[in-house]
């Protein structure tokens, strides 16, 4: 017995011109045509119905063809024998079925090849009913609300715990290991020396160039030494080191603790009764608080050397003259220590923010990426705000 599908397909094969007659020329084209010269109209799919097809099927056109049918109750769906198809045709047919659900014209899929009709029925079978969809908990159920109040409480909880564990450390009851602290000191201190050297040297050099051009107008180029020295120790040294620390160390804290959370390493600490803040956050924050002022002092010196390079090589001062001028600019130790106090606060901010973002990261790898980005952005923003607050406070109390 000859399959009904084959007869219909062969019958229409000759009628659809330009689709399958010249296979070579029309390779990659898909077509759908409405054949109406029969008792029951029929929608014929032919050609290349694949995801990789360069020509996309026009659903609206097909849909309007069907809606244009008059005085008929049903429409058969056929596939031409040469039709090459994959899941894109299945999806097309399912969409058609869905759109025509409420229409008077019923679609008849019985003439389709068994493989395709199986795929269609499989997809319909696995569709959840409306009732089932209502039963499933929505995404909102598990959403952790990040309203400002919740974030504020979380930050307060984190800082409070840090304070408690720091006080335990002072009483010698901490889980923090000296070795972890020393490793952190090496990672955020000594390892950062090359980048801090480069950045602070170039900062000092640039300031000397910019300053000398202006001071030359007043015939006071020697004051470049004062400018570079004061700008470095008061402002640029602490700020540049803080920015390097935020981008380098803060981000690495967030990434390290965040991936530990994803790998359940934080959970395994908690089940042992070792608080993550005590064991992981304290050594990192303390190392950063210790190392940032030290790096700042180093950056101040290297920045002044950058200025010295311009002073001696471009402006022609002697090294001794330049140093004497630098020394005279530093009226007291306060000029240096005011910058170091700032850097202490910056280290604290970068350490706290980096560790906080790591520990409170979500449970996916994309949230880890966001945590790292946000650790850097929030640290730098807070550092700049704190810097401004320090300067305002220094001026207010007459310390400048």
């Amino acid at each position, binding site marked *: 017995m000859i399959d009904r599908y084959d007869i219909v397909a062969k019958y229409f094969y000759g009628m659809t011109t330009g689709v399958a007659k010249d296979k070579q020329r029309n390779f990659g084209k898909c077509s759908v045509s409405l054949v109406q010269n029969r008792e029951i109209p029929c929608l014929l799919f032919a050609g290349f119905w694949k995801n990789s097809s360069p020509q996309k099927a026009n659903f609206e056109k097909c849909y309007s063809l069907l809606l244009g049918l008059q005085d008929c109750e049903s429409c058969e769906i056929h596939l031409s024998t040469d039709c090459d198809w994959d899941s894109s045709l299945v999806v097309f047919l399912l969409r058609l079925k869905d759109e025509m659900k409420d229409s008077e014209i019923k679609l008849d899929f019985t003439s389709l090849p068994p493989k395709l009709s199986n795929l269609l029925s499989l997809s319909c079978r696995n569709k959840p009913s409306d009732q089932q969809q209502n039963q499933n*908990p929505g995404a909102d*159920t598990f959403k952790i609300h990040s309203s400002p109040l919740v974030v504020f409480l979380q930050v307060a909880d984190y800082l409070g715990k840090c304070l408690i564990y720091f006080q335990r450390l002072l009483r010698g009851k901490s889980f923090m290991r000296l070795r972890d602290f020393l490793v952190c000191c090496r990672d955020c201190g000594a390892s950062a020396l090359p980048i801090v050297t480069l950045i602070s040297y170039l900062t000092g050099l640039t300031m000397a160039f910019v300053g000398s051009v202006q001071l030359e107008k007043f015939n006071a180029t020697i004051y470049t030494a004062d400018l570079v020295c004061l700008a470095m120790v008061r402002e640029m040294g602490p700020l540049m080191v803080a920015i390097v620390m935020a981008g380098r160390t803060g981000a690495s804290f967030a990434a390290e603790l965040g991936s530990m959370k994803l790998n359940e390493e934080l959970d*395994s600490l908690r*089940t*042992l*009764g*070792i608080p993550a803040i005590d064991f992981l956050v304290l050594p990192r924050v303390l190392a950063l608080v210790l190392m940032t002022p030290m790096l700042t002092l180093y950056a101040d010196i290297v920045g002044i050397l950058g200025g010295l390079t311009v002073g001696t090589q471009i402006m022609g001062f002697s090294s001794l003259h330049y140093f004497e001028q630098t020394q005279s600019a530093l009226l007291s130790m306060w000029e240096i220590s005011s910058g170091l106090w700032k850097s202490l606060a910056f280290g604290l901010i970068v350490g706290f923010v980096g560790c906080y973002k790591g520990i409170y990261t979500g449970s996916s790898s994309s949230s880890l990426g966001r945590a790292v980005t946000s650790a850097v952005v929030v640290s730098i923003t807070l550092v700049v705000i704190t810097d401004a607050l320090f300067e305002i406070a220094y001026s207010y109390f007459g310390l400048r």
Partner: protein
Amino acid sequence: MSIISSEDSEILKVSELELSYGQHVVLRDLNFSVKRGECLAIMGSSGCGKSTLLKSMIGLLRPHSGEILIGGMPLWGRRQELNTAVARSFGVLFQGSALWSSMTLLENVLLPLETFSKLSSRERRDLAYYKLSLVGLSGSESLYPSQLSGGMKKRAGIARALALDPQILFFDEPSAGLDPVNCQILDELIIDLKNNLGLTFVIVSHDLQSIFSISDHAVFLSASSKTMMEQRKTSDLLSQDVDPELSAFLKSYRSMGVSG
């Protein structure tokens, strides 16, 4: 150093436990217990709340209500705060082993000992070497977790869980991500530890082959009713008339033609 009294035969007892995420109840009316030296399997299909139940039993998720007694002591206090002394009396093997990646295997096992024991450094090292040799990892002490295969990571995880000589071990999907050979090696290791050290095991798994080979009792969590079926002996699961949902769950095991 365990706080668990040895007379008490029911080492873990869960009563009227209800677990929820916010307003969404995950599981309710959970009642089961494990006797010393036995192995309890908690099974169920994906999404039925197995891991949530485990989280509350190991002190990572506060239960909504109910009680978890470990060696007769409540794990969660009256104000639902974690009783850390009780929490330290069990070991946990996480699904991904959760070894601390910045430390070698030896350091991983040493950390709990360094933190909670008053032994000398030599004794601690000897203990750590011994625990690693128990799980067949002698000679790998100086390797980092990233240098290990999946099966070795699991065994290292067990060694770390054993570090403080716990009376009870919780395993989360021990066979997940392992090939059949490594699965069997792990099952044999669990049986060895159970027989030789007299340890109690609570294993969360949906690997029926493994459940039937190592566990004495089983609790089946039903995703539809959000509670548990009656606690049964593993050997009775196949012989007795069981609930249709459990029966469907066991179907694949029955079709393999293996008897419990």
